[in-house]
């Protein structure tokens, strides 16, 4: 038995991962190639050992050679699937992840957990979900990459082209009308509730829904705020989103949400008489309904602010706000 040579070791390393049917053929081809290359180098005056080593260095990593022999990809996800994988991951991380985190936070809050514990749980769930969302689709695509056969029917079509940011006024007209109508209805509702909006047995009760004491300051304050919101909607229509308006949007939202929630949670917002008539609190329902309302109001306002920033960035075609521009 002769000593194992470098060639033997190279051939073994290259052929071990190749299917049985192709192994003998690859082994013979490799031995021919290494032998011929070594002989040629020996003829240039090198020792056999040096020549063999040089020949193997030129062949390169045996695993790469075997992979090219059996057409096995040397990347996790190749160009055939990369864009599909990338779009899917972006969708998962921008939709599934925030929705789940919000749902966990919300579920914890209505089940009576305090805010710190609820945020902690939401972060833990969010982190573990982020890992899963990264791992499993990537694994699926890596398997797909290694599956012989035609590519999946996830072809790009022109329908996938993104909409251009709406920069022209006509695109914003619908938004303006929507905002003005909604704000108008809202203002009318605030005034109208004074004359009673609660129906019992089909008969309207002459009881204001909001606390009548608020007319001294807060209700006029909110009405003024609604007028400002209308002016803001007109400004958006006239000039489009910019960083000034995005900041104004933030200020308006804070000016609405903070006092409204403060009045609501301290029990000053709703008329106690109206609560009596409605039979509030409805058993345990208050523990659920109050957090839902608070959560919804904060969520809607936060989204409105974020939406404004997104539209500002898109409209400008710039990625990041800079201080000079604000």
């Amino acid at each position: 038995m002769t000593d194992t040579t470098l060639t033997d070791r190279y051939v073994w390393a290259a052929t071990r991962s190749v299917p049985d049917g192709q192994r003998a053929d690859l082994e013979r081809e490799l031995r021919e190639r290494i032998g011929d290359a070594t002989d040629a180098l020996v003829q240039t005056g090198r020792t056999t050992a040096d020549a063999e080593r040089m020949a193997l260095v030129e062949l390169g990593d045996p695993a790469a050679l075997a992979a090219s022999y059996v057409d096995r990809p040397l990347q996790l996800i190749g160009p055939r699937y990369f864009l599909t994988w990338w779009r899917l991951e972006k969708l998962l991380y921008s939709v599934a992840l925030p929705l789940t985190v919000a749902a966990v936070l919300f579920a914890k809050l209505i089940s009576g957990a305090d805010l710190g514990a609820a945020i902690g749980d939401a972060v833990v769930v969010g982190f573990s979900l982020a890992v899963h969302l990264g791992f499993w689709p990537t694994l699926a695509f890596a398997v797909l990459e290694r599956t012989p056969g035609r590519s999946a029917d996830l072809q790009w079509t022109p329908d996938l082209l993104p909409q251009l940011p709406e920069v022209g006024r006509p695109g914003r007209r619908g938004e303006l009308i929507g905002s003005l109508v909604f704000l108008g209805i809202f203002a009318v509702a605030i005034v109208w509730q004074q004359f009673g909006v609660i129906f019992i047995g089909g008969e309207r009760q002459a009881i204001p829904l909001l606390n009548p004491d608020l007319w001294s300051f807060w209700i006029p304050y909110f009405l003024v705020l609604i007028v400002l919101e209308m002016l803001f909607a007109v400004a958006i229509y006239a000039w489009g989103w910019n960083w000034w308006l995005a900041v104004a949007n933030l200020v308006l939202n804070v000016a609405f949400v903070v006092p409204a929630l403060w009045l609501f949670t301290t029990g000053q917002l709703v008329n106690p008489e109206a609560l009596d008539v409605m039979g509030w609190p409805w058993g345990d329902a208050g523990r659920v309904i109050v957090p839902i309302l608070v959560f919804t109001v904060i969520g809607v306002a936060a989204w409105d602010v974020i939406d404004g920033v997104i539209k500002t960035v898109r409209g400008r075609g710039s990625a990041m706000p800079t201080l000079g521009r604000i």
Partner: protein
Amino acid sequence: MSTDETTAGHLQELRRGTVVLACLTRLRTPDYGYALLESLNGLGITVDANTLYPLLRRLEKQGLLTSEWNTDEARPRKFYRTSDAGERLAAALTADWHRIDEALRRLTTGDER
């Protein structure tokens, strides 16, 4: 990327298809990998072993070359030969080569029609 690297990259791209044509033409008389490598490089068609050996296998898989093991000598060698399909491809590639050569010549001399 330096100018040399860019040039080398473009030269490699330009030559890629010509190596296929050279192999198909040269292997009308059967030969094995290393002998083919030597004779092509001797003719001035520079090709690397790491390019040529996988190429031969690919052409065989596509049915453009046939192969046979010669075990007469101590070291068994795989002899490749151009198949009928390979001959037809070589004819088509040669015709295209001449057409491109002619077109480029006219472009260079400004004799466009």
